[in-house]
């Protein structure tokens, strides 16, 4: 690819070209072309079953784990096609990490949750680990709330704290891209706002792609919004544009709640 595309101020982190995805005979994604900008928050919206979560999972090959999935097209991360056979998928998922709908801390201490990734990648030095744990929890805006209970079970934290812990666990392996699949749908409104605030802070250092069913959340947090319907990318553009004057009637109908 033309490397100059990656050096512009509004740099593309991920280029998706002619992406198709099939679950056996069913085509879940149809000819998706989308550029994901570095250090921006891209929101993926659309009704249930539209393909937005499937699309999110193509970005770190999480769909590989599902039997019968076939992917066509290319996804370039910093210019390298992540679907090339020689790609180390574990390393890809370290670079492109994921936060899920429900917080899923491991049944171990707060400290061990965050240390899990760095340890798997071979880090054993206690002092270095301590530094990474503090830094990651700070980045996830959780350090002040858990610094006195690092060695207690993570399962004792509130839902919102657990979700921020999962984000800290992700940050500990120093990813470049954060994929978030409805990260606050299981949280109360205040915890949701804390996650949204955190996402805003994190975009300085990370590229973030978020799937959300909450229109107002997409409008509040994202820079770019992409609307999916029936496996197609119908429209994408600056969030402000999409939420004030969408070009496609289907986008208008969906975001204004008149869909279906």
């Amino acid at each position, binding site marked *: 690819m033309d490397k100059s595309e990656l050096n512009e101020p509004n740099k593309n982190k991920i280029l998706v070209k002619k992406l198709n995805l099939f679950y056996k005979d069913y085509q879940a994604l149809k000819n998706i072309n989308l550029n994901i900008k570095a250090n921006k928050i891209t929101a993926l919206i659309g009704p249930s079953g539209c393909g937005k979560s499937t699309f999110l999972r193509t970005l770190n090959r999480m769909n590989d784990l599902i039997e019968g999935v076939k992917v066509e097209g290319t996804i370039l991360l910093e210019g390298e096609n992540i679907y090339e056979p020689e790609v180390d998928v574990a390393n890809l998922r370290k670079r492109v990490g994921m936060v899920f709908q429900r917080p899923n801390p491991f049944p171990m201490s707060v400290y061990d949750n965050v240390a899990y990734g760095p340890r798997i990648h071979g880090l054993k030095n206690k002092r270095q680990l301590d530094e990474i744990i503090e830094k990651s929890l700070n980045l996830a805006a959780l350090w002040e709330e858990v610094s006195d209970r690092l060695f207690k079970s993570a399962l004792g934290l509130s839902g919102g704290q657990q979700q921020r812990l999962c984000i800290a666990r992700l940050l500990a392996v120093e990813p470049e891209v954060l994929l978030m699949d409805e990260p606050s749908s299981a949280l109360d409104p205040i915890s949701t706002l804390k996650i949204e605030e955190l996402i805003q802070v994190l975009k300085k250092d990370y590229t973030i792609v978020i799937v959300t069913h909450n*229109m*107002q959340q997409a*409008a509040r947090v994202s820079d770019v919004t992409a609307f999916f319907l029936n496996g197609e990318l119908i429209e994408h553009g600056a969030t402000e544009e*999409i*939420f*004030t*004057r*969408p070009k496609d009637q289907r*986008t*208008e109908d969906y*975001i*204004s*709640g*008149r*869909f*279906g």
Partner: protein
Amino acid sequence: MNPRSSFDKALIEIQEDIFQLANLVGQAIYNAVQSLIKLDPAGAAQVIMCDEEIDDLYAKIESKCIKIIATQQPIARDLRMVVTGIKILLSLERIGDHAVDIAQATMCIRESELNRKSSEYLTKMSRIVQQMIKDSLEAYSERDVQKAQEMCTLDDEVDHIFTKIFQLLIDNILTDPKSIVQSSYLLYVSRYLERIADHATDIGEAVIYLITGERKKLN
């Protein structure tokens, strides 16, 4: 089933309220200018009293718009619809205030007759600005960009008459210093009518934004 049917109903209600307000305001300008032409202080007093009704209706519609923003979080065209509604409301309310200004000027003129030429100009200006308000509200109702644009061209005509009446009144003052009080008030009135045309143009711009999402300056 339309999951937003009660919301849609509320939006339609706001629009209908705006038409009602526009009718009141249009009538107020007509009455104000008629009272002036006939130098009828009782008619002018009536215009001033009716402004309370305009202000009450304005406040009622504005509250509905605020409630809809707070409770329904409108976006895209819905958002433009509410924002446009508020802009049109503001313009109409200001036009209503100018009708009161004209009525107050009328009550200050002590002469028994109005300068004939001025009276012709003011009648003409008044007719055009009423037409502008009517057209702008029709463009709003019919979502008609072309009508909104055409309506705004009438503003040039109003500006043209304003220039002429301004010159006429200055000449009157110079040739007949005794006419200074009447002429000064009529200068005010012509200026109010000119401002009303500007507010009508603002309504036209708001209608174009509602339909296209684009901001367009028309005067």
